[in-house]
């Protein structure tokens, strides 16, 4: 019975599709009960299901659809008018049919469901019409009535279900209660057999056709038309017309028909195309070494064809997202009615296409989000009216392509997410600690809703509220490489934004080399490539609080080193990497980059502090301990990591020499102290200090240089709305790669999105830009707080000066402030500046950041002709961005608006002229120019006296 199974399968597939359409149609119809075509379409669908169910022997299905069909017929003929009750009943019927189809799919039988009450209801509703029930009468225009009707249960293959037949006509044996009669419109001409057509046209009688068929059956091989003509039953012209009509109809039917293809077959095609792409890549690589022009031409053709083929096959799997959305009107309607809410659903962008596998994957998450919005988001009509909103809530679905991704937004204009409640619930369920809660900003708190077990619903309904939904949604979306984000305004509504990559299979990527291995970076995240050489490399990479940054056209770009992120130790022989640079020194510098100079420096400083304690008599150290340059922490570091691997680098040698001298001096100094020889001991200690300073500055120098190296390749990437730079050893080509998923064992590594096979057959890993960024902390919100927490004055107060941030002041003069006071450098557009309490503020990380303009803080400056008052926009401004230096203290932040950030310098802070001018601590020479040192704290104090006294709100 294999054929039977296929027929059943087809029936199920088609019926399910039709049922989805039914849902949509019924909801549409409810809104506009007079839409005739919709009603006709609904009728046809039920009719079809009824017919085939009879054929396949599903009697229950048949009975239910039969009654439904009767009801629909009354509606269609205008004998009944659609109301909510009827709609619900019809929807119930659709569900019943669905249920039975599921049973058939699972067990092959309809199941034991009792649909009698449903049948009764439908019958009752139908009987409520005044005219007598007579849905057997054929209305005008019904076709080919071969014989009078009879309830068509058990009819053979229904022509309206079957695909158009081919030219050899075999008429179904009469008297044949053909379903076609029940159709309100004639079935498409192509579906009618020639005989039927002729009878319909009136040129032949059914009996003559029947005779001709019998002849055919008995062996006459002529075509039906011929037989009829020969018998004189039909005129040649009539036959000709009928045939032509059939052909035309068939042609048009075919051209707009779709072909149902098994998804597995498409998958196979995709795989094959993937393999073809790989093979093509290999051939391309090989062809670059060949000269033969025929070969090259053919390769080029192969290349073009493969690309087109790849695009075409990918398109076959693309489906409009409307396929999922089509269910939503019904879902929303049912839910809203169930909750007693009124909700209008608007959908925009339903033709946005996605790969089929992605559609499957997001179906459930999206459904859940929609249900959530209805259940929890939108308030009841009473609440809404009380809040001054229209009683009908609005649920807005939007889909569009952007940046290589599909964006889906689900917004409602409901009550929004109450961040406070979320926090309380999370605390109550011990999902976060009080400490964590106090440090989170609103956005982080809102994202708590994605934690499993968290729900702010007061009641658990059967729709949602148990707290198992949102985390599953997030997991499922992340599983396909997407992201989900929530934004909400209390009282106004919530928006959930889902982003998923367009396709997973074949993507263009940039290949880079780092640590000796190749990695692929998806081009969709790639913004630009920056190469710094020589001096540029040294100066281009600056350190802010130990984090490397690069200034890219004025904006600070946080950097991450791929080698460090992957913890790829310099295990290989350093000389074969970077051999292209040819410069021995540069080789050593990039190798030195692997050593942690910052920690070496702090080790040394700690030791010096201990030494001070000893000198003051607070601690003791034996002279041998003090004098040993191998026993102190720095020495240990030097002689293990430092010298062992890099014994031929000049810096390390210099360090070693200095260090030895340092300890010698310490040793003798201590012994002089012990001997009581004050003069000599002081001399020695002075020498100690000097040497220590030199050591520290050498370490700092190397550290700064290490970040630069001789040449730096920076790949500027975009992750989650933020940009960062990835420093790699080498940049290779861009290639199209086939993305292959990583095995289960490796799926958890957030830095990799998959693997691919390169043209030479080697496997290369594909980097997950977002995962990498998160790991490197270049996009984390929390990072900035910790940066500020870690900033202790001690760190930047070393002997040779502080790091200073240089800016241009309001009178074009140069100003400086200690870098240690800078939490962040930000750029805002002028339009984002608002006023509150008479001051300029800007929304920053969900806080309100008050702004202080330097011009107003330094009142006795000559103010520039270009007004720096942001509110007066009459003058054309140079740019619509303002530079803000953010200062944070105890959780409270304030932004200093500056004209321009110039540079970062290292200088000893010794103000030479103390002026009484408000706002400065004096002036000094920095980088050879006279620079005023800002009194940051003073400026803030005068602008907002309460800043330092008020504690930050939790």
């Amino acid at each position: 019975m294999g054929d039977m199974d296929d027929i059943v399968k087809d029936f199920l597939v088609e019926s399910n599709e039709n049922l989805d359409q039914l849902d949509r149609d019924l909801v549409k119809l409810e809104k506009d009960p007079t839409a005739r075509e919709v009603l006709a379409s609904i009728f046809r669908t039920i009719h079809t299901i009824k017919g085939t169910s009879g054929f396949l022997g599903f009697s229950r299905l048949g009975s239910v659809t039969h009654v439904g069909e009767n009801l629909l017929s009354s509606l269609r003929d205008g004998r009944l008018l659609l109301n909510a009750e009827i709609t619900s009943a019809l929807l119930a019927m659709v569900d019943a049919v669905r249920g039975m189809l599921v049973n058939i799919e699972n067990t092959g039988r309809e199941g034991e469901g009792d649909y009698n009450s449903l049948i009764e209801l439908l019958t009752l509703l139908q009987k409520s019409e005044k005219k007598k029930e007579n849905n057997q009468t054929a209305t005008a225009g019904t076709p080919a009535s071969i014989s009078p009707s009879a309830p068509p249960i058990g009819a053979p293959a229904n022509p309206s279900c079957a695909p158009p037949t081919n030219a050899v006509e075999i008429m179904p044996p009469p008297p044949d209660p053909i379903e076609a009669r029940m159709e309100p419109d004639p079935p498409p001409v192509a579906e009618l057999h020639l005989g039927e057509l002729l009878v319909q046209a009136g040129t032949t009688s059914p009996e003559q056709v029947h005779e001709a068929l019998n002849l055919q059956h008995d062996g006459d091989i002529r075509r039906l038309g011929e037989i009829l003509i020969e018998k004189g039953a039909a005129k040649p012209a009539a036959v000709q017309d009928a045939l032509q009509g059939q052909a035309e109809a068939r042609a048009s039917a075919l051209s707009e028909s779709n072909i149902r293809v098994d998804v597995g077959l498409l998958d196979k095609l995709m795989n094959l195309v993937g393999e073809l792409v790989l093979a093509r890549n290999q051939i391309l690589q090989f062809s670059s070494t060949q000269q033969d022009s025929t070969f090259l031409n053919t390769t080029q053709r192969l290349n073009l064809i493969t690309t087109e083929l790849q695009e075409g096959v990918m398109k076959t799997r693309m489906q409009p997202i409307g396929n999922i959305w089509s269910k939503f009107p019904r879902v929303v309607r049912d839910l809203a009615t169930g909750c007693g809410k009124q909700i209008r659903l608007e959908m925009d962008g339903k033709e946005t296409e996605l790969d089929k596998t992605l559609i499957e994957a997001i179906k459930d998450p999206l459904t859940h989000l929609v249900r959530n919005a209805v259940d929890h988001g939108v308030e009841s009509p009473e609440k809404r009216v009380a809040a001054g909103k229209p009683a009908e809530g609005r649920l807005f679905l939007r889909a569009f392509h952007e940046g290589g991704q599909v964006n889906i937004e689900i917004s409602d204009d409901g009550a929004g997410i109450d961040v406070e409640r979320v926090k309380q619930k999370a605390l109550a369920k011990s999902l976060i600690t009080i400490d964590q809660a106090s440090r989170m900003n609103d956005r982080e708190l809102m994202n708590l809703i994605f934690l499993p077990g968290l729900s702010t619903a007061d009641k658990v309904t059967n729709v949602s509220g148990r707290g198992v939904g949102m985390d599953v949604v997030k997991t499922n979306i992340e599983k396909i490489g997407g992201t989900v984000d929530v934004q909400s305004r209390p009282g106004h509504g919530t928006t959930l934004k889902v982003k998923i990559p367009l396709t997973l299979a074949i993507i263009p990527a940039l290949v880079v080399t780092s640590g000796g291995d190749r990695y692929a970076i998806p081009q969709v995240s790639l913004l630009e490539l920056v190469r710094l050489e020589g001096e540029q490399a040294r100066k281009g990479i600056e350190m802010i609080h130990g984090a490397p940054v690069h200034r890219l056209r004025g904006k600070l770009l946080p950097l991450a080193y791929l080698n460090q992120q992957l913890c790829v130790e310099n295990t290989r022989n350093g000389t074969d990497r970077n051999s292209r640079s040819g410069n021995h020194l540069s080789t050593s510098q990039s190798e030195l980059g692997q050593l942690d100079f910052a920690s070496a420096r702090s080790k040394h400083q700690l030791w010096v502090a201990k030494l001070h304690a000893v000198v003051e008599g607070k601690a003791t150290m034996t002279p041998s301990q003090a004098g040993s340059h191998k026993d102190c922490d720095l020495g240990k570091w030097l002689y293990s990591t430092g010298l062992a691997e890099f014994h031929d680098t000049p810096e390390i040698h210099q360090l070693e020499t200095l260090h030895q001298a340092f300890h010698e001096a310490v040793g003798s100094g201590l012994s002089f102290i012990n001997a009581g020889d004050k003069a000599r001991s002081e001399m020695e200690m002075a020498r100690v200090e000097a040497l220590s300073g030199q050591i520290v500055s050498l370490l700092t120098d190397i550290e700064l240089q290490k970040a630069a190296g001789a040449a730096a390749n920076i790949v500027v990437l975009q992750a989650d709305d933020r940009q960062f730079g990835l420093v790699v050893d080498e940049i290779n080509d861009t290639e199209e790669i086939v993305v292959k998923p990583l095995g289960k064992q490796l799926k958890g590594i957030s830095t990799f999105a998959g693997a691919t096979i390169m043209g030479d057959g080697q496997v290369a890993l594909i980097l997950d830009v977002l995962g990498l960024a998160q790991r490197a902390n270049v996009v984390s919100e929390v990072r900035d707080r910790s940066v500020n927490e870690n900033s202790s004055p001690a760190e930047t107060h070393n002997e040779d000066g502080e790091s200073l941030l240089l800016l241009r002041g309001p009178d074009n003069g140069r100003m400086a402030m200690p870098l240690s006071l800078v939490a962040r450098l930000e750029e805002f557009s002028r339009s984002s500046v608002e006023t509150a309490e008479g001051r300029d503020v800007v929304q920053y990380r969900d806080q309100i950041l008050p702004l202080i303009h330097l011009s107003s803080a330094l009142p006795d400056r000559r103010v520039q002709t270009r007004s720096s008052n942001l509110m007066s926009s009459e003058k054309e401004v140079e740019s619509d961005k303002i530079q803000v230096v953010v200062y944070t203290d105890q959780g409270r932040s304030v932004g200093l608006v500056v004209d321009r950030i110039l540079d970062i310098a290292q200088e000893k802070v010794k103000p030479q002229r103390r002026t009484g001018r408000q706002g400065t601590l004096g002036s000094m020479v920095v980088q050879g120019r006279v620079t005023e040192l800002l009194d940051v704290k003073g400026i803030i104090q005068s602008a907002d006296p309460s800043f330092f006294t008020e504690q930050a709100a939790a």
Partner: protein
Amino acid sequence: MAVKKQFSTFVVDRLLFGVEVEKVQEVIRYQEMTRVPLAPPVVKGLINLRGQIVTAVDLRCRLGLPERADDDLPMNVVIRHEDGAVSLLVDEIGDVLEVEDEAFELPPGTLSRGVRELIRGVYKLKGALLIALDTDKMLNLVTTGTRGA
């Protein structure tokens, strides 16, 4: 009535191990691997197997046995798995052996817990002991890191 099973066998650190022959997709000589940074230490790398990317798991590491010498190249036993194929790195490949159920015994209690969970049991052969591996457990637990011996 002796129920027989066929095992594909291989040697790791001079111990004879076996996996049901139906589970083995193929056995292949040393393949160049691409290492995976940040992966658990048992994952030695990725192999290109006729266009399929296969994760290579070092059995020595997984079973807590000492590391292979640098110049000893491992062989690959590619196992079929629900998620795709995984290759086990072994020292040498053995024959396909037929064993009888009666020769089966559960692993001794003296084995450390970590290893015991990976072993289905032991078949007593003439002159050798065949340790039957539980491939599912072996590959499943890789995600949680190595269990030392």
